[in-house]
């Protein structure tokens, strides 16, 4: 009996490892297909993108690295698709050095060419933007003065869309969409774009960062996408099926497993304390 208590108190590491891996693999193989409740934040984000007109320009900060790809890529894909549906043009910069290397994989999922989108005319990636907040201000003033070439070193003179931007750039931009895992990046964009010029803005931070963005919503930031979960809701709500929808089952399973661990830990602790006393 005493050993039982002890066992509940100290479950070895490999059990967590197997239980989590096993349960997540199981739910991927045999999905429940549960709906995910769509929150107001996501509906607002959808409305902002849906309000775009043909020919409007969206500025995206494609600012994720390899580490947070699962939180950011689905949102990027679905919003890009939605923007194409509305006929809006897309220009991108990136606050992550890894973004240009990860872009091709995401574009393969978006397939802009299927919608007749041509690189250089309908969308551009300018590449990595170093220099923090001062640089955000600089590109909003004059993007063609900051960059001389795009992310693959094609001179901007060969890209017609870049020629349209000119100075001041911010007057041509209808929406700013920020994807980032950095709190200072998200808030920097708010200060430089939303506060300074009142350009509509949507943000997609990591799930756990959302509370720090909420103080700016809905005055400065009109839509907040709650990481990958928000992307799943967006996919469901907008009707552009994607990868993130499958997440719902994973969240249910993973959350339940953690709840069980939490309860087991406390039962073990309680039993041990009772035994000790």
């Amino acid at each position, binding site marked *: 009996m005493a050993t039982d208590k002890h066992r509940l108190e100290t479950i070895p*590491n490999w059990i967590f490892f197997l239980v989590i891996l096993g349960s997540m693999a199981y739910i991927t193989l045999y999905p429940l297909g549960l709906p995910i409740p769509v929150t107001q934040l996501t509906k607002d984000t959808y409305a902002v993108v849906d309000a775009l007109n043909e020919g409007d320009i969206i500025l995206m900060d494609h600012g994720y690295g390899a580490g947070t790809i699962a939180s950011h890529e689905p949102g990027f894909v679905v919003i890009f698709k939605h923007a194409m549906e509305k006929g809006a043009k897309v220009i991108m910069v990136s606050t992550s*050095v890894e973004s240009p290397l990860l872009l091709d994989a995401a574009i393969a999922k978006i397939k802009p060419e299927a919608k007749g989108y041509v690189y250089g005319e309908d969308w551009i990636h300018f590449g990595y933007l170093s220099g*923090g907040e001062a640089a955000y201000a600089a590109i909003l003033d004059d993007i063609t003065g900051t960059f001389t070439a795009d992310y693959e070193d094609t001179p901007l003179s060969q890209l017609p869309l870049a020629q349209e931007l000119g100075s001041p750039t911010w007057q041509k931009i209808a929406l700013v969409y920020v994807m980032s*895992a950095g*709190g*200072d990046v998200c808030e920097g964009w708010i200060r430089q774009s939303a506060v300074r010029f009142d350009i509509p803005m949507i943000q997609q931070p990591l799930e*756990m*960062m959302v509370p*720090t963005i909420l103080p700016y919503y809905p005055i400065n930031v009109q839509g907040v996408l709650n990481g990958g979960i928000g992307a799943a809701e967006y996919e469901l709500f907008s009707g552009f099926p994607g990868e993130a929808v499958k997440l719902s089952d994973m969240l249910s399973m993973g959350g339940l497993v953690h709840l069980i661990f939490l309860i087991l830990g406390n039962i073990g602790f309680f039993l041990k304390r009772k035994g000790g006393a």
Partner: protein
Amino acid sequence: MELVAGRMLDLVTLIAMWAVALFLIYSKREVWIRRLPALDFIEEAVGRAAEMGRPVVAQGFGSGSSGLQSSVSPMIVAALSILGHAARICARHGTQIVATMRSESVLPVADEVLRTAYRLEGKLEEYEARKEEMLPWTPNQATMVALAYELRPAAHIIIGAFWHESVQIAEVFGSVGAVQIGGTGRLYQIPFFAAICDMNLIGEEIYAVGAYINRTPQMLASIATQDYFKLISVALIILGTLLTTLGMIGPLDALFKW
């Protein structure tokens, strides 16, 4: 040349903080400071490591492009002053200290901090012989985990700037039996330290470290400045709330938009 609109109150506040700080520093008043048990605990933790003959690991010196040049630099400076403090105790006891490096701009500085600590204890040769091992380059959290298993440290000081890796390293170092003293000003990471570490510093407590360890009147005066401005913040919040409730927020709001 013109002043940027909307930032005037910021400027005035900054100048006021400088003025009050300088006044208090030069007036050399005596300042009382409350106890910070987590910092007192460092000595005990290092002592424990010496008894067990196991090393001490210190982390928290920025990461990649977020080094001394970035806006987390105050946290890194705080982390470095703790590193200096801990390194002196380690040098005295003959305990090995390992400071993991993730940011290129911090590496030469951490080198200087450790060198100074060992010099002050008269053990410079000891440091020169093994400095590469004492400042290992750990560019990712997996390396830090491996380091924990390899060194099995008795004490783990995780004070400074942290990102997503915080929960992982705290959990692993805890599971290999290190006593942990945690603290960071990065909002997202405080919860893990609060939950996992044996002793923790919440948020700005890490900035009080230099003053707490050295106790020079000048350092304490700057902490006092911080407190006075905190009191002013409290007063402003109360005032603003009263005025809002009474529907007379206009002038105060205008001041904040200045």
